[in-house]
């Protein structure tokens, strides 16, 4: 896959194709899987995403720790000024997938499990409001994959390495490219959608309560979807971000490397380290241990054994 999104856009323009088609051709050219196998895998991913959205919107799930669940269903009956719009559709679907993830349901890591709600939120939100055939959605997934691959090479897709900007931020950037792709925008517009989305996620820390993929992760998937919609709308309006996209991605990597370890998934800072964050995490972990009974001994008895 590409290590420069600008280079990918130039290649797509040269060939007169979209980023999704370019991604499918480039992947097939590696010879590991045929074009047909790649498309079949993406079609399956799409089905799993649909299943997760439906499961989460049912509203009866609780996460393993009990901290989250049921909020996607609340948002499926919105009461605010954006009720019955694409915007609330996207938020509800992103929440739904992430609630399924927190409840040990089946999801598609895109790019990670912690950011898995954003891409299905945006793509299936769009598909709920206009006729989008599965072939278009598969091209959208492929375009998102291309963007994620560039971010993986130039920066990071791991909260432990780069903070939440590398998980929900990267997912939002991927979803922005996917959205422009399925709305028949140009590769250049998709590229600017990535920049316009990612600039809004720069510096976002990874600070999950108790180290669990629950709070704030579930809600960050919804706000990630909102950022992607902002990026898509601005790019389709012809707005061009002045810093080249590869430099924006490099900036995300640089900020991630400079980020204190407290803000990289360790639950040592941010919301996780607030008095309430600490209390909730403590209470939930005590409950989990109690539920697991004596099976899990917190002792260090094995420390002395051969390792």
């Amino acid at each position, binding site marked *: *896959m590409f290590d420069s999104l600008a280079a990918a856009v130039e290649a797509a323009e040269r060939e007169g194709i979209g980023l999704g088609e370019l*991604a*499918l051709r480039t*992947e097939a050219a*590696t010879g*590991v*899987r045929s074009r047909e196998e*790649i498309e079949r*895998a*993406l079609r399956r*991913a799409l089905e*799993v995403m649909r299943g997760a959205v439906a499961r989460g919107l049912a509203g009866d799930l609780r996460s*393993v*720790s009990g901290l989250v669940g049921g909020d996607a269903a609340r948002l499926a009956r919105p009461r605010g000024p954006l009720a019955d719009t694409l915007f609330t559709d996207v938020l509800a679907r992103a929440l739904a997938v992430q609630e*399924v993830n*927190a*409840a*040990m*349901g*089946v*999801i*598609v*890591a895109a*790019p*990670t*499990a*912690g950011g*898995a709600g954003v*891409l299905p939120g945006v793509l299936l939100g769009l598909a709920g409001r206009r006729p989008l055939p599965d072939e278009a959605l598969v091209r959208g*997934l*492929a375009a*998102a*994959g*291309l963007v994620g*691959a560039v971010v*993986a090479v130039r920066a990071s897709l*791991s909260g*432990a390495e780069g903070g939440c900007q590398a998980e929900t931020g990267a997912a939002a950037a*991927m979803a922005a490219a996917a959205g422009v792709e399925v709305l028949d925008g140009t590769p250049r517009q998709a590229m600017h959608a990535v920049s316009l989305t990612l600039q809004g996620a720069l510096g976002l820390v990874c600070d999950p309560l*108790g*180290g*669990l*993929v*629950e709070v704030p992760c579930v809600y960050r998937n919804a706000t990630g979807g909102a950022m992607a919609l902002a990026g898509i709308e601005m790019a389709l309006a012809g707005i061009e971000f002045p810093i080249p996209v590869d430099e924006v991605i490099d900036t995300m990597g640089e900020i991630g490397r400079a980020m204190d370890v407290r803000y990289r998934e360790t*639950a040592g800072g941010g919301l996780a380290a607030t008095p309430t964050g600490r209390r909730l995490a403590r209470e939930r*972990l005590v409950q*989990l*241990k109690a539920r*697991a009974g004596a*099976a*899990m*001994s*917190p*002792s*260090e008895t*094995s*420390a002395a*054994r*051969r*390792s």
Partner: protein
Amino acid sequence: MVSLLDIIGPVMVGPSSSHTAGACRLGLFARGLVGGRPDRALVELHGSFARTGQGHGTDRAIVGGLLGYAPDDERLRGSLEHAAEAGLVVTFQTAKLRGEHHPNTARLTLARGAQEVVMIGSSLGAGRILVTAIDGFPVEITGAYPTLVVVANDEPGIVAGVAGALAREGINMAAMRVSRRRRGGDAIHIYELDSPATPAALATIEAIGAVRLLRAIDRVA
């Protein structure tokens, strides 16, 4: 080389690609090392696995792997109960393993009939794993290929015998590694293959006199 399907995927049971999907793959690989469902398992969780493993279902994911469930199998959620029903006795402990280990590491001690195996493996992120020790032998196995584990007396000709058996069946090796504790003792051989070993190849390898143990493990990643 980053693949499109590494980014859009894997399809998995949540909530964490490293704490859940990777943990399940470690269990699956360990299951392969004893040739099927173990009767007893000691699961020792190290580092971040020990700290947040329960909230991430790491315990359930590892046991699910021991029962043969893949990372996308929804039965993972109920694996601790299924293990009890199936007669697999699991003990969990937290541990501080000696030496350098990735934060997400587990040591699995499994018994199946008369066999016992001790495996150490790490979950590296995005569901990728690395098995780093088997029965005290240092190894580096990703589980991304069908893998042969051979324990044989350290004497000349074993590698040639294994390679010949595979070549006759048209099976290509992606990587191999041999290590031993002392000259003339037991040596462990790891062969990562492009396609699974055929029954004929396995029978030929098993017939080599110095081979004490042979395990063919499907790809888990």
